[in-house]
C-alpha cells in the first residue's frame, strides 16, 4: 500500500466509527459565570467594554449584573479541570473537550462556528452546556481526503432558558 492509500483507508475506518456516534449527546455543568474568567477573556481578545468591568455602567445600561462578552461561552473549549496532561492527545487537544469521537493520528483544526446569541449573559448565572454530535461529512479537498465534524452546543441557564446555541465544525485529516 502506498502512504496515500493508507491514509484513505485509515480515514474510512475512522469515518465508519464516527458515524456510529452521530447523535450522541452529553452535558456539562459549567458553574456560575465568574468575572475573573470572562474579564481575562475580554482583555485577551481586546474587547474592553465597560459593561464587562464596571457594575455601575452595566446597571445603568439596564443589566442586572456585569455583562459577559458575547463569544465567551462558545470560545472556551474545556470547562472541566482536566484532563491531566498525560491524557491529552499528542497535539495537546483534549479528546473529551473536542468531540465525542476518537480521532487517533488525525490532525484537527477549527473550521468555523455559527453562534446564535439568544439572551444576554451575566455574571453569576449558572450555565449548563448540552452537546450533540450532529453532522459528519467526508470531503476530498486539494490536500487529500478529510472529515468534517459538526458539534452543536447549547448553553442554558439555571431555569433552562436557552442563552446561546452554537454549531462548530472541525476538520480532521
Amino acid at each position, binding site marked *: 500500500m502506498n502512504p496515500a492509500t493508507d491514509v484513505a483507508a485509515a480515514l474510512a475506518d475512522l469515518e465508519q466509527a464516527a458515524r456510529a456516534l452521530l447523535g450522541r449527546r452529553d452535558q456539562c455543568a459549567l458553574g456560575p459565570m465568574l468575572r475573573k*474568567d470572562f474579564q*481575562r*477573556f475580554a482583555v*485577551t*481578545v*481586546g*474587547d474592553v*467594554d465597560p459593561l464587562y468591568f464596571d457594575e455601575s455602567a452595566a446597571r*445603568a*445600561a*439596564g*443589566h442586572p449584573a456585569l455583562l459577559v*462578552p*458575547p*463569544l465567551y461561552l*462558545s*470560545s*472556551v*473549549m*474545556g*470547562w472541566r479541570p482536566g484532563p491531566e496532561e498525560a491524557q*491529552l492527545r499528542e*497535539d*495537546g*487537544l*483534549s479528546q473529551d*473537550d473536542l468531540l465525542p469521537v476518537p480521532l487517533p493520528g488525525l*490532525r*484537527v*483544526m*477549527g*473550521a*468555523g*462556528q*455559527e*453562534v*446564535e*446569541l*439568544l439572551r*444576554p449573559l451575566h455574571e453569576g448565572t449558572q450555565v449548563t452546556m448540552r452537546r450533540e454530535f450532529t453532522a459528519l461529512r467526508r470531503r476530498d479537498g486539494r490536500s487529500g481526503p478529510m472529515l468534517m465534524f459538526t458539534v452543536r452546543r447549547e448553553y442554558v441557564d439555571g431555569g433552562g432558558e436557552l442563552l446561546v446555541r452554537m454549531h462548530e*465544525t472541525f476538520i480532521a485529516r
Partner: protein
Amino acid sequence: MTAAPAFQQPEPGLDLPELSVRPGEVQLFRFSAVSWNAHRIHYDRDYARQEGYERPLVHSQLHGCLLSRVVTGWLGPRGRMIRIAWQNRAPAFAGDLLLVRARVREVHQDGSETRVELDLESRNAAGTVLVQGTACAVLEGNHSMHSPPGQTP
C-alpha cells in the same frame, strides 16, 4: 486609543470602521489559556512546523472574536448582536496583520427594531481572505445613543 468615529446609520453597502490588528504569540498564548485550549499548533512553533505551518496559528475562535469586535464596537449601546457565523478560509499566523471588516448587506425595519445583516471578512496584508462570515444585529428603532439593550428609552 483614538476616539470612536461617529455612529453611521446602517444602509446597504455601508462599511463599518475597520479593525487592524496583529495577533502575536503572546495574544495567542493568552487566548489558549483563557479558552482552556492546549492545542499545540497555537503556541508551539516546533510542533506547528510538524503539521506544516510556518508559525503558530491564530485560533478559529479568536478570528470570531475579532469579527465580533467590529460589529459590537460599531453598535455600542445602541443594540445587540444576535448572531455571528464564520468559516476559516486560509491560515493566519502569529504576527500577521489582520484587516477585519464588516459591510451592511441588508437593513429591515421590524416594528420598533431595525435588523441589520452584515457580511464579515478578515484578510491579511497580502489580501488573502482568511475568514468569511455573516452577522445579524438588532438596533432600537430610534438608534438613541444610550438606549439600553431590550429597553425602550
